[in-house]
């Protein structure tokens, strides 16, 4: 994400053109934010195909509603907000389907199946990757929803406090409070902490 002044000016211009109905401008925005949105969704659904589908949905929603965007400079938080809401909607539907057992076998593509991907991350072994995701998942599962969301937005999606406040439509003070609690718990999360340290301090 470009955070320089020049970059943000260019982006603002692109947003303006996209709002005016310029398809190429919207395509440029899509290309610019595609990876960030996809990663953001992937952290929450942990399935490649679902993350791809949901990313497409997010951009479609953004395209349809871009005329409602008030502040062109805040396109990114606006887009991320759509993404977070899209994931929530999807998880709600998933829970409903689970309740009625209408889950398709190809729906949950958990981390265990990543070994079959054509381009697996080479940095770590499959086992280590699975351990990492399992520990992270377990840690996040122990956090209340708001703390979890704030923690993921801050340290995995790497958004600033102000951006998180915009994405979640909460005051910055509230975000800081939740973040403080989450980080405090993270400090005591020995398994995840040790895993991160051992894997990376060694090299």
């Amino acid at each position, binding site marked *: 994400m470009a955070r320089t002044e020049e970059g943000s000016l260019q982006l603002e211009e692109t947003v303006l053109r996209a709002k005016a109905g310029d398809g190429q401008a919207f395509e440029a925005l899509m290309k610019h934010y*595609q990876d960030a949105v*996809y990663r953001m969704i992937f952290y929450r659904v942990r399935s490649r195909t679902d*993350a*791809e589908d949901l990313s497409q949905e997010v951009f*479609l929603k953004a395209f349809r509603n871009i005329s409602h965007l008030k502040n062109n400079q805040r396109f990114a938080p606006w887009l991320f907000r759509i993404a977070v809401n899209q994931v929530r909607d999807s998880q709600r539907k998933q829970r409903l389907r689970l309740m009625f057992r209408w889950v398709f076998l190809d729906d949950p593509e958990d981390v265990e199946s990543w070994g079959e991907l054509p381009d697996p991350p080479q*940095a770590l072994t499959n086992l280590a990757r699975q351990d990492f995701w399992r520990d992270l998942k377990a840690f996040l599962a122990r956090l209340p929803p708001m703390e979890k969301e704030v923690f993921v937005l801050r340290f995995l999606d790497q958004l600033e*406090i102000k951006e998180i406040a915009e994405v979640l439509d909460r005051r910055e003070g509230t975000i800081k409070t939740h973040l403080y609690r989450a*980080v405090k718990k993270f*400090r005591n999360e020995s398994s995840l902490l040790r895993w991160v340290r051992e894997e*990376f301090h060694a090299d």
Partner: protein
Amino acid sequence: MPTSHSLPHLTEKDLIHAVSDRQSLSAEAKQHLAVCMSCRSAYANLALDLKRLGDVARDLVPQADPSRIAWSGSAWRHGTRGCRRGQRPRWPRLAWGVLTFAVLLLLLVGRGSERGDTRLPDATREGRFLAEVAYLSENPLPPSFENIVPETVLLDDAFMEFLVPVGQSEQSSSTGYLVS
């Protein structure tokens, strides 16, 4: 005025605030952090852990298929999602829908026919009930008592005379009521 060295070390709360949002630290804490090795090291370790967490997570995200997150301008403009390569077919959902409908229909039909069937047993049950009432009117005692008490109690004439003397019986029959 106290020097940065003489300022108290950062608390856990300060450290966590520092890694979450450096701006939220007070000027004094920032000043202390700049000169205190111990606090700086604690801050750096925690910040590094959190940064690494983000880095590892980012490294472990599988590559997306760009064709699945693609701009399909004309389709989007016309309010459709467009046809994406590798998109999941819709027929399994349709099949599930049809199957669910069929199961619901079967359940409803099953219940209806079950209700229809219950009419015959109802009639049978009523017949059985009446037969049981008739039996009980003739045999009011439970079967275990039937051996103790004779089937019919025969009242001999002397006992009847004791109960209702003949004169009274006649009188009552002529007047139509008993005279005590």
